[in-house]
């Protein structure tokens, strides 16, 4: 029997429910303190944004030629992070990897909240945010219609699809768990969970339909996730900006998204495990397996980046090479940090099982990966815009306090949404984990007993 199954086999269903639903207990003062602090950072970011709206974009660092800066870096970063749930939850669900079970909910919730944050940034970075509704296709008196030939509108369509799809994917997975929470709740909470649980009873027929719906949704959400980040990549690739106009951008962005998503899931797993005492459910085995997945993804990212640089270096087209030289010259420390964080460190460290099974080491590696991925987005956007084709319009960019405040608010807002989610909804897929318990048995084979797990076709 594997480590998680050993721990679970000894516990009753009620005990498993108690432990896995421990995040939903009455909040402590530490929880209130954290929520207040995060709320304060979000409020500060909102006030900075309000100042930007009331003044104009001159309060940011944006100016010719760098009209896309840290806001767009945020947008691409958060869209990338949203690939966590899809890749971890949907792919592992389809491949029927049993170790996925305690990780699903954290990954799916992360997808929803990160794509929500991502969707705010195209609005935040507009010069006239109050006319953002111009992009909606409805008959109007303005004589305007959205231009569907623009990649920015493909973005809007894809992100809307992904937000709705991933929210439904999260809700679907939670349906049986909401019924468990409903049965244990009292007062107004019971009524709310009863509405959300939609009358779920757990009949055999409901489980059959649920299992097939979960598989179908997993199969549908994966191509949507791939298309979303490919479309974000096309925002850059279909332009003629040197450094951006590259056919490798869509797969490169998707690989980068999976890298940051998987790393972020591991980081969140570590935090959730520690805060809610879920050591029996998120074991070193889970980190070992996620570490292997991360190793493969980091290798792919390293390959994609190498290919990108190698073709630029070999062709040595003047303006393309100028952009690369400028970036590597002016932003050398950031470039080194990016390469170490995304490639050198994970590829070397994650080869070792001892490191993959060490929670502390995984925390350091995964946080560094996401810092490096944010830097990577910044280094794609800003240097290329700074040094485009005409030398007399070359310029520079550095983010202002307004942009940094909004960035901080984005991180705080994501964390706050996650904190609230953990308080009101189960952070571990309760029925998924318990399913492992009902399907396993020990059978006598030869001279010993072996662990057997039943699976359905």
């Amino acid at each position, binding site marked *: 029997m594997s480590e998680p199954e050993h721990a679970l086999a000894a516990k*009753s*269903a*009620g005990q498993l*429910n108690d432990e896995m639903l421990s995040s939903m207990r009455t909040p402590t003062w530490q929880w209130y303190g954290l929520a207040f602090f995060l709320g304060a950072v979000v409020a500060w970011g909102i006030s900075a944004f309000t100042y930007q709206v009331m003044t104009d974009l001159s309060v940011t660092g944006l100016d010719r030629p760098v009209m896309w800066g840290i806001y767009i870096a945020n947008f691409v970063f958060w869209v990338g992070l949203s690939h966590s749930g899809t890749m971890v939850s949907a792919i592992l669900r389809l491949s029927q990897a049993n170790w996925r079970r305690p990780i699903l909910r954290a990954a799916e919730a992360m997808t929803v909240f990160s794509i929500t944050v991502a969707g705010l940034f195209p609005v935040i970075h507009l010069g006239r945010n109050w006319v953002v509704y111009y992009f909606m*296709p409805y008959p109007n008196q303005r004589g305007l*219609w959205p*231009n*569907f*030939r*623009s990649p920015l*509108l*493909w973005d809007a*369509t*894809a992100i*809307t*699809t992904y937000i*709705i*799809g991933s929210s*439904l994917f999260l809700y*679907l997975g939670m349906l*049986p768990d909401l*019924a*468990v929470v*409903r*049965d*244990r709740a009292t007062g107004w909470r019971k009524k709310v969970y009863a509405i959300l649980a*939609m*009358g*779920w*009873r*757990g*009949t*055999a*027929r*409901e*489980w*059959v*339909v*649920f*299992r*097939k*719906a979960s598989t*179908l*949704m997993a199969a*549908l*959400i994966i*191509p*949507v996730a791939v*298309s979303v980040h490919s*479309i974000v990549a096309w925002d850059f690739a279909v332009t003629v900006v040197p450094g951006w106009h590259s056919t490798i951008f869509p797969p490169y962005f998707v690989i980068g998204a999976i890298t940051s998503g998987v790393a972020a899931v591991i980081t969140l797993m570590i935090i959730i495990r520690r805060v809610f005492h879920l050591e029996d459910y998120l074991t070193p085995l889970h980190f070992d397996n996620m570490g292997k997945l991360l190793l493969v993804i980091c290798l792919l990212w390293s390959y994609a980046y190498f290919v990108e640089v190698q073709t630029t270096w070999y062709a040595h087209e003047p303006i393309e090479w100028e952009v690369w030289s400028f970036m590597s010259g002016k932003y050398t420390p950031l470039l080194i940090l990016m390469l170490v964080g995304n490639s050198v460190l994970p590829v070397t460290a994650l080869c070792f099982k001892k490191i993959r099974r060490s929670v502390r080491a995984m925390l350091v590696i995964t946080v560094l990966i996401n810092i490096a991925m944010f830097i990577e987005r910044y280094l794609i956007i800003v240097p290329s815009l700074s040094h485009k084709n005409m030398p007399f319009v070359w310029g520079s960019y550095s983010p202002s306090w307004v942009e940094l405040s909004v960035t901080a608010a984005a991180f705080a807002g994501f964390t706050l949404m996650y904190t609230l989610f953990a308080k009101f909804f189960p952070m571990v897929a309760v*029925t998924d984990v*318990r*399913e492992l*318990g*009902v*399907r396993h048995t020990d059978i006598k084979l030869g001279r010993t007993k072996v662990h057997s797990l*039943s699976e*359905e076709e």
Partner: protein
Amino acid sequence: METLGIFKDVETATRAVDGLIKAGFREETITSLTSAPYPDGVIVKTDQRTWFRWMSAAGGIFGACAGFLLAAGTAYVYPVQTGDKPIIAYYPTGIITYELAMLFAILGAIAGMFLEMKLPPRKERPYDPAIADGFIGISVSVPPGDRRNRAESLLKEAGALRTTSEETL
């Protein structure tokens, strides 16, 4: 009418199912209520066929048509001349068609799933919160009268901790 018996473990629950089948109750009228899914046949056998995927397919086709009309149709009706670019362009039209097809396929899958599960229910159905903590419910759909009483006594003989009955459609 549905009669529900609550059992403490799988063995007593399956004993109840066997007893009901031996007494002449059809297996299609018997179902289990569990908070974790058991493999088919462990407690009861259920029809594994589902139809909600057709709703997802229908949603996808509808979405594709909607996306095509949105991107190509509206561009034709309200043309925006930008240099020598085509009014209706293949790739943008394809992308919008694909995205809306996926969106409506997902919505169709969820709607179909709830329709097939018959959720939310129109009437109160028998249930026991103990099921959430690992107890197993065995439910029999029977007409009111002698059959209901017979089902209830069989459930109790098999070891049901308690039984409830509700009028259902």
